[in-house]
């Protein structure tokens, strides 16, 4: 439920780095806590965010929650499918349910994030 090849933030986002492109989403734990997701407010392409800035907003039947960018960079692609089917995040948070891809500006920030083992400890999994 917490893939080893990802990095995790304390706010329950995950990052997958390929070259200088980071794919960002929310963890299995986060989607479970949010409950059924009904809307995702995606960032605009070209937007630059700093680490911990608000990247997107997820609305579930329980609440509206900010998704913080686990890493600094420029948004180059967003998951358009989430506009029609936001529930993909509940169904498949790590593959189909990704939120945005960023061209990262500071790879060192990755060291401030947790690995799967550390993240599982944080959430008591």
């Amino acid at each position, binding site marked *: 439920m917490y893939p080893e090849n990802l990095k995790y933030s304390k706010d329950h986002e995950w990052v997958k780095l390929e070259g200088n492109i980071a794919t960002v989403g929310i963890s299995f734990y986060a989607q479970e806590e949010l409950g059924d997701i009904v809307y995702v407010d995606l960032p605009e392409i070209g937007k630059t965010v700093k680490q911990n800035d608000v990247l997107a907003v997820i609305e579930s*039947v*329980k*609440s509206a929650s900010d998704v913080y960018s686990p890493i600094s960079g420029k948004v180059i692609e967003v998951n358009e499918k989430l506009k029609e089917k936001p529930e993909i995040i509940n169904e498949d948070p790590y593959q189909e349910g990704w939120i945005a891809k960023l061209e990262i500006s500071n790879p060192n920030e990755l060291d401030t994030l947790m690995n799967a083992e550390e993240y599982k400890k944080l959430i008591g999994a």
Partner: protein
Amino acid sequence: MNKEIPLIKDLHDDNRPTINLPDPLEDYLPEKILPEKLLREDIPIPQVSEPEVVRHFTNLSQRGYGVDTGFYPLGSCTMKYNPKINEEIASFSSFANLHPYTPEDLSQGSLEIIYKLGEYLSNITGMDKFTFQPSAGAHGELTALLIIKAYFKDKGEKRKIVLVPDSAHGTNPASATMAGFETIEIPSDERGLVNPNILAKYLNKDVAVLMLTNPNTLGLFEKDILKISQMVHETGALLYYDGANLNGIMGYARPGDMGFDAVHVNLHKTFSTPHGGGGPGAGPVGVKSFLKDYLPKPIVEFDGEKYYLNYDIKKSIGRIRTFHGNFLVLLKAYCYIRLLGSEGLKNVTEMAVLNANYLKERLKDLFHLPYPDLCKHEFVLSGKKQKEKGIKVLDIAKRLLDYGVHPPTIYFPLIVEEALMIEPTETETKNTLDQFVEILKAIIKESEENPNVLKSAPHSTPVGRLDEVHAAKILKVNWK
């Protein structure tokens, strides 16, 4: 009970006799007084008999649930009993039929009520001047933030940040956004409170205001409020009081004495006027005197002889609502304050706090209690023990409906996992509270013996478990 009530249009029958309205006078024929595009050939008014109409609406009215039908421990909403004498007074023709444009000299009594309610609320909250235009709590927040924005603009300061704790009502950031501010969230400490050491990291010259609810949404009094107030004011920012939880301190502590610069009061919560379907509400805003020149106009004033509407408020943010707000709601709040007096209002707070603490102690072993301190008028339990066994707090809430109880607030505040926020209010007897405990015990027992009865609840309501995802995504707000 489980029968769906048909829409009145579905009761239509072409054979029902209809009422023939007399033809209008020549000068008032629709085609003479209305533009052509507004004229319609037919108006789909259902043809139904009088008994059918009466039964339809009586049946609908019996589907309602309110504090007049049962226990309603909805946290942070203060669903206290609304004394019927208030309704009776508000229905007096001299109040109910008063036109808002009645000249001042013919509406002295009503103006006096608004003026005196302002004095009473100033006394209760420690503020200097009130506006009665805001229609509800969130409208009050927006009004106060617009006042604060105008104040800083006047001083030539560009402060764009509103701070709210992570336990704040969702209306706080929403109001801040509406007023053109940016919201930043402050994490609560392990006590569930705003911690001055954490707050210090967030305070700077960009911060316009800190919005606080005290007691907060965990039902806990912000113990460091005097220190917080000092720190906020030292950076030149202001302090705003969300009055949703005034029922926990009324008569014992005043926001004005704690250093708050602006407050809103929910008359429909603390001051016993109906809300929800029985509303409307009222969210008057009170300010310290340095902000009173920014209040919406007009304000009711007294010149020593008569009451009048003062439009001469030079820096006023303008009107934020038509006429004088929800006047009959103001009247009911006025009656409530006059009926109870200052000792009575203190007694309200005592009983509200006693009831909440009694329930908390009786329920703390059944659920997880994340903040075990003495609470004020409400407290928050966590259903995490139950969740480990696959029962969500939503299932428990839905099952409560089958027992004829309105569920508490759930999944709020967001900082408590599987939150169950309970506010019994002062108007409930020990007997009712004990019954509620027994019902929850029975539900927990069911969850262990027959969890499916919870997961598929409610069973006794006109409609069963609603599809919340569908409801949130596909809005259908029209009968057609």
